[in-house]
């Protein structure tokens, strides 16, 4: 088992109030799964993401990553786990504006044990994998949104992480570019990459093989894609069609409606 969360709670203190962001959550994810975590804002999906990504430690419960318990690890040990086993993709890319694509991709290697002479080659390889070998020297302000997210994905992949964690990876992209990025995720999944993607958009979630729905810090539905309601609406993930606005339209409004309903 790659990810094993057991009775995980996370309590934040906001003044006198105690907020249970995660409330006894139990979840297993195996190798080469493609999981979408859905839920309204405030349902705890970001907190779950942070816990899985070792950015945050649960208040109680246990988290094993690849068979190793992480609950008692110190800050340095957790940093090492993030460096070697986790690849993050953020909604707003989080690229360093002063660095070109190559340097941005190289960033995790700086904190790893990779020798400097091996870094260049690794960066080129992974940039090629995300289809950006012709944008190596470009800075983020010279790249489009989709290209920026590809750089970010390349950066996440550079250390061959056990899990690729993506938090609303298409949130800042138009629908066509979103589909391109999701296509890249599909390709990575086919190559054996474990992916956990947090989203509230059904059009994103349909790319996954398993959909986890959260509410109030708990999993309330955990089904393979075939059994989840979204696959009822859209039987198969569609490739980005030329002029795909038409097909996108209803799905978008659907997800938005879902959001409003739950919040």
């Amino acid at each position, binding site marked *: 088992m790659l990810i094993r969360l057991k009775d995980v709670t996370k309590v934040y203190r906001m003044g006198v109030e105690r907020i249970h962001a995660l409330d006894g959550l139990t979840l297993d994810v195996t190798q080469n799964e493609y999981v979408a975590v859905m839920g309204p804002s405030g349902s705890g999906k970001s907190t779950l993401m942070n816990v899985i*990504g070792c950015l945050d430690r649960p208040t109680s419960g246990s988290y094993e990553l690849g068979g190793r318990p992480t609950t008692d690890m110190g*800050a*340095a040990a957790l940093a090492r786990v993030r*460096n*070697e086993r986790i690849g993050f993709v953020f909604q707003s890319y*989080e690229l*360093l504006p002063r660095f070109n694509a190559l340097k941005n991709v190289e960033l995790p290697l*700086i*904190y790893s*044990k990779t020798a400097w002479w091996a870094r260049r080659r690794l960066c080129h390889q992974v940039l090629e994998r995300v289809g950006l070998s012709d944008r190596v020297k470009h800075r983020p302000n010279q790249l489009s949104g989709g290209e920026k997210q590809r750089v970010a994905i390349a950066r996440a992949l550079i250390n061959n992480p056990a899990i690729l964690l993506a938090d609303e990876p298409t949130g800042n992209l138009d629908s066509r570019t979103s589909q391109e990025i999701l296509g890249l995720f599909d390709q990575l999944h086919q190559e054996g990459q474990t992916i956990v993607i947090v989203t509230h958009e059904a059009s994103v979630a349909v790319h996954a093989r398993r959909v986890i729905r959260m509410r109030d810090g708990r999993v309330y539905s955990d089904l393979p894609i075939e059994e989840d309601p979204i696959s009822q609406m859209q039987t198969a993930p569609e490739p980005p069609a030329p002029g795909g606005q038409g097909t996108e339209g209803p799905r978008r409004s659907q997800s938005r409606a879902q959001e409003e309903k739950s919040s």
Partner: protein
Amino acid sequence: MILLRGPLLLAQLLVQSAFLALGQIRTHKTRAALTTVGIVIGVASVSTVIAVLTGFKEHVLSQFEAFGTNKLYVVPDRPDKGPLRRAPWHIIRFTPEQFDDIKRHCPSVEQVTRVGFMNRTIHFRDRSVENVRVLAIDPAWHRIENRHVELGRPFSVIDEDQARPVCLLTPKARDKLRLDRDCIGQEILLGSRLFRIVGIVEPHLESAMFGQGESDVEACIPFMTAWKMGQPWMLVIATSKSTELSQEARAEIRFFLRRVRNLKPGDPDTFRVEVLEKYLSQFKQIAMVITIVASGIVGISLLAGGVGIMNIMLVSVSERTREIGLRKAVGARPSAVLLQFLVEAVVLCLLGGLAGLMVAHGFTSLINQIIKAGIPDAEHYHAYIPAWAVVLSFGFAAGVGIVFGMFPALKAARLDPIEALRHE
């Protein structure tokens, strides 16, 4: 190999942090320049003060050395108390034979000369020079005073034994009497006695500190000749075998002289033995104290500069909160973040130190020019920043960077990555 891995990775991280810091400084040139002003001023003033002091110290030391740091002066001296405090001068003063055995009894003494002083008018034909200093010397005098005979010959044993009327002149004295360049064999009147010139002796060493006002118009005659002419006031100059032995030589001479002069135990000395080395070490001590005090005072301005560094590093940390969050998310350990910001502060300070040293170098050459133009006798004065001051400046600058960069760096290292990534 495994043992080497840790230090190598650290070195790699250090180099990367340094490059990163340089990039950061390049993007904020004006800010970096303004921030380091304090450090620049601090380092510049410390280095300039040290340079000037070093120049002064070396100037004085070279004077000491030219004068001879292993010299001992033995002079008669009436004691302040005891039965001899009212002794007449002829009891206190030295006589030549008192020093006959000094070298045999004082093993640390290398050379000894008796020196008598007289003032005479010199006549040559119809020309005369008044008030010429006449030195009555022993042969060792040339080596002790480092004034050798440039032309002709020094006094011989026969000159000494028979108290012959022979003399040496300085070039100035020769010129004043308008003698030929090669005037050896000529006879001059020294006072009322005829002396034959046997050589030309080197003039007194140029010195700003010692022998000021001493005329270069001098004549030397054998000591015994002078003694027989009229028992001049005399002292004894000795050299020890080395500067380190000067205190020992001093003790030996004192012991020897007390016995020769029949002083009973408890009687005060009727003479003084002065050692130049004592003044030298005192001077060195004073110079050191001045250097330390000046560096300390000016070092305070470095601390003021340090506060500027801390301020700008805090700004840098809060500006780059998201970057710190990202770096942590991709696996930067807190120590790596700490190192990055610390290195940035240190690099900033080192650049300030470099600029400060360049400013100090400019000041130093300016001071050198002013001193050379404005003060006579200072041709040999040369202020410069010694290597240790360069090292010290960089060390101090780095220290300021570490001390004042620590708080911002710790702040960065302790940032919660989730909070940092949410930061706007």
